[in-house]
């Protein structure tokens, strides 16, 4: 410590700031607060399907005949336990947002069942019956700039759900709004309540949106890319806030994101979606560290990291060729097979179900049928579907994980 600074290496240990409380706690995956395995199930999706019809020209519109369907969500099963954070990860067009919208009842499913707290809410429609539901399930949108009405003060925005739901007297509403703003980290709440959205920064706006969700005291929060518009430093604060809220209020999150690394920091479990199907689901650590589906493996391998790659490290990235097909033309068999570097004959014909590979980790891949299989690293960067390559590689790498 007393050694003089030599100017070459990184700096010596820096003096601690005077006030340790001034340093905010880092966002860390809270091992101290993991969900008990026997926590009750809060949300359950059974074979959920959302198909949007494509209508063609005028004649089709008049006859109401659909030209085809976009299979946005194509049969997914999912459960979230109370107090859990489940991250739904996928690229654009994977159906993750549609799934979230079905859960908050903004989009009607075309098949399957949604169960919340043991009650089937699939056919719960109409304002009156939804009112109670929406007290318990709240949505946070991606863009805080568009969520907030520029002509309403922050206080009005936060109180609005209470007014709509006819909760409490005027005074009680005000009190609850203040408490929600305070819980969302906007302090002093009274000061913020009188302001307009344009007076706030992006991070503060997103806090307001969170306060607006909190004011209803929900059990389940569906957060659709809540931090992807924000700068890193603000992003971390919000993730911190979301974790704190879970600890304090026992909130449950369905966290929708395209960013696997955010999911990894925040979530207990991760579900990876591709073209309307769940390709892999399981505890975050297992999905990221030992992916059992080639798609997840490729996604993990291309997720950039802030450490400069060491020599040769880049070779281990699997960059898939082409793009996600559109959901109106879902490929036969496994929907990922045209881009899968490990695809073989069966993949083009049969669609793999989710195979359990242990510890609640499931993968929809024929390679996982026989149990956990360490996927070979596909070194060919321009990995295209090729059954010979795959077969050879698997021969080398076939080893069941312990």
């Amino acid at each position, binding site marked *: *410590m007393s*050694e*003089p*600074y*030599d*100017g*070459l*290496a*990184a*700096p*010596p*240990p*820096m*003096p601690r*700031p005077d006030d340790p409380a*001034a*340093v*905010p*706690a*880092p*966002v*860390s*995956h809270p091992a101290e607060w993991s969900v008990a395995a026997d926590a009750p199930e809060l949300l359950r999706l059974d074979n959920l399907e959302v198909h949007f019809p494509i209508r063609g020209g005028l004649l089709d519109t008049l006859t109401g005949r659909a030209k085809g369907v976009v299979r946005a969500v194509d049969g997914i099963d999912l459960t979230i336990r109370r107090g859990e954070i489940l991250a739904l990860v996928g*690229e*654009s067009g994977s159906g993750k947002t549609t799934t979230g919208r079905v859960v908050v009842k903004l989009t009607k499913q075309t098949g399957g069942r949604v169960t919340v707290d043991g009650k089937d809410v699939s056919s719960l429609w109409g304002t009156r019956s939804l009112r109670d539901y929406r007290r318990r399930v709240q949505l946070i949108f991606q863009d805080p700039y568009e969520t907030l009405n520029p002509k309403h003060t922050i206080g009005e925005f936060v109180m609005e759900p209470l007014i709509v739901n006819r909760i409490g007297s005027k005074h009680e509403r005000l009190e609850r709004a203040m408490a929600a703003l305070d819980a969302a980290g906007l302090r002093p709440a009274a000061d913020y309540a009188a302001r307009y959205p344009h007076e706030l*920064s992006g*991070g503060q706006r997103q806090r307001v949106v969170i306060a607006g969700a909190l004011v209803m005291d929900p059990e389940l929060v569906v957060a659709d890319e809540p931090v992807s518009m924000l*700068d*890193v*430093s*603000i*992003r*971390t*604060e919000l*993730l*911190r806030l979301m974790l704190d809220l879970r600890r304090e209020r026992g909130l449950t999150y369905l966290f929708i994101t*395209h*960013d*696997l*690394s*955010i999911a*990894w*920091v925040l979530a207990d479990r991760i579900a990876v979606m591709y073209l309307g199907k769940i390709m892999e689901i399981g505890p975050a650590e297992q999905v990221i560290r030992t992916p059992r589906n080639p798609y997840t493996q490729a*996604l*993990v391998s*291309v*997720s*950039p*990291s*802030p*450490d*400069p*790659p*060491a020599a040769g490290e880049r070779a281990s*990235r699997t*960059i898939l*060729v082409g*793009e*996600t097909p559109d959901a109106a033309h879902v490929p036969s068999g496994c929907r990922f097979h045209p881009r899968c570097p490990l695809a073989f004959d069966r993949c083009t014909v049969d669609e793999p179900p989710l195979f359990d590979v242990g510890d609640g980790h499931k993968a929809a891949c024929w390679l996982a049928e026989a149990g956990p299989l360490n996927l070979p690293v596909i070194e060919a*960067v321009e990995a295209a579907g090729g059954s010979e390559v795959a077969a050879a590689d698997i021969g080398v790498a076939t080893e069941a994980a312990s």
Partner: protein
Amino acid sequence: MTTAAEIRGRRQWPLPKQANPAAPLLEVEDLSVRFAMRQGSVKAVDGVSFRLDDGEALGIAGESGCGKTTTALSLVRLLPANGRIRGGSVRLFGIDLVPKSERQLARYRWREISMVFQGAMNALNPVQRVGDQIAEPIEVRLGQSRDASHKRARELLDLVGIPKQRSAAYPHELSGGMRQRAMIAMALACDPAIVIGDEPTTALDVMVQAQILQLLERLRRELGLSLILITHDLSVIAETCDRVMIMYAGKVAEEGPVTRLFTAPRHPYTRKLLSSFPNIHADRRTLDVIPGAPPDLRNPPPGCRFAPRCSFAMDVCREVVPPEVRFSDGVRVACHLFPTPDTAPLVVASGPTAPLTVGRRADGAHEAAPGIPDVPTPPPAGRPRGLDGADPEDGQRPLDEGRSAS
């Protein structure tokens, strides 16, 4: 690594007449840009200096409002109407572009410095076929015939991985990744010396982003492209660039080789920024929080602009603007925690010690770890980047010995 002479020898078009062939590709010195606002003048860029060598990729990173885009736009003066360069120089091949008139500058735009913008849908003309859009600068700026320029456009599309037939497509017929490729083809149309990418992959999916970054890497290798990559995403820079410049509130906080800066950050802001990024490839599920918000640039704090948010701020930080200090490993830092070259006696070379190796601990702190060898970059001839007289081999020791133990 190709040399500057080789890269310049490969140019299709001669250097500008006033160019000094021995001058570095791009040297920006003490650049200041202000925006006139009703509420006062905003110092968006305040005394920024950097240099780009032939074939090099420089990443400029920072949060929104730090001046990274403004810095890049002011190189070819594409600033909004209320923006003005208030001082400094931008020397391309030794030619100062700042005093040039709009007309004179036109020769450098696109032909020497071209740009790839973030939203390809907004940057491309929706009612013109992509092939025509790529051919246009070749025809207009280089005076090529219509046939020749269209032929070149098809070659360029092929180069960036778009089938030639798609040159007749309109932008809306292409996917996001394809549009971004078309943008890159357009930027390459006149064989420019420098391509500036302003958040070129931000709106794209991670797999498409990987494809585009791979393309940029290939183009750098094949064409000896010199690249300035502007992004808020440090991980993109870590994967593509040779050097990185971290900006904060219109000033350079730290600049240096990616291998050094990302593994051994010196500036507290760089440290915070790096540890607030999740890293899926490391056992780190901890993100740091940077308290507070960037300062209002209409009247920035008197001393270091990061001082109000810095957990190591001292009295001097709140009063005196920290000078930039260069280190022998090619990093320069503007922070009072570091002795200036004037306090060089502090920089005593101690005896031979363990080689400097760094790694990251699970909690994001830095510690000595085997595996990542550190190669100090030798200062380029003619412009020492290190402290005068300091030998890069001297006085190295494992990072943060005391820290990792505590």
